[in-house]
């Protein structure tokens, strides 16, 4: 586990007490020399129960406001425990070769 991955994991764990959490470094799937540029988050938390999707994403955007200045892309998949039970995992992130932030 690299530094940013560990940092994101710790922050999300503290903020949301997730029942399921995946922080996946997808940087190797993308062009360029960066090794900590693309991350995918899968967060399952009771905290999301009364929040719309956009508000769940806003919460995480706010939590990682500073980090997003350095990360090129952060794919987010946020579920309540009930929603997670109905699903078979989060969608794949697309490939990308762009040099600017998503």
């Amino acid at each position, binding site marked *: 586990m690299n530094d940013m991955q560990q940092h994101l994991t710790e922050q999300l764990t503290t903020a949301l007490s997730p029942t399921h959490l995946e922080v996946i470094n997808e940087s190797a799937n993308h062009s360029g020399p960066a090794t900590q540029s693309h991350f995918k988050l899968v967060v399952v938390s009771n905290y999301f129960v009364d929040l719309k*999707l*956009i508000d769940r*994403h*806003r919460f995480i*955007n706010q939590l990682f*406001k500073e980090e*997003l200045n350095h990360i090129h*892309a*952060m*794919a*987010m*998949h946020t579920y309540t425990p009930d929603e997670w039970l109905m699903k078979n995992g989060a*969608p794949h*992130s*697309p*490939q*990308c*070769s*762009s040099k*600017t*932030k*998503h």
Partner: protein
Amino acid sequence: MDVMQRIQAQVDSSPIVLYMKGTPQFPQCGFSATAAQTLASTGVEFAYVNIFEDQEVMQNLPAFQDWPTFPQIYMNGELVGGGDIIVEMAQMDSLKAAMEDATTKFNDK
């Protein structure tokens, strides 16, 4: 007209507006490509803005409705979210209805 007024005019000009890198035909980012394909898959018409063609919009759009990343999707002037949210809505079968609803409301204005 300053840039924020210009963005406001853009999101007010169509019921559904996608801000993306490149165009639906020639997307320049995987996340933008996915967003455009997902919207197109509903068969409901939408407008798009290629942010690479307008540096001022690209730089100021994150502050417009406090959303740090691209793509961004607006319905009737309100931010719906980024690409991940559009994909989730499509998977929950709520995207097409939301787009049709936005179009109906826009036309009734």
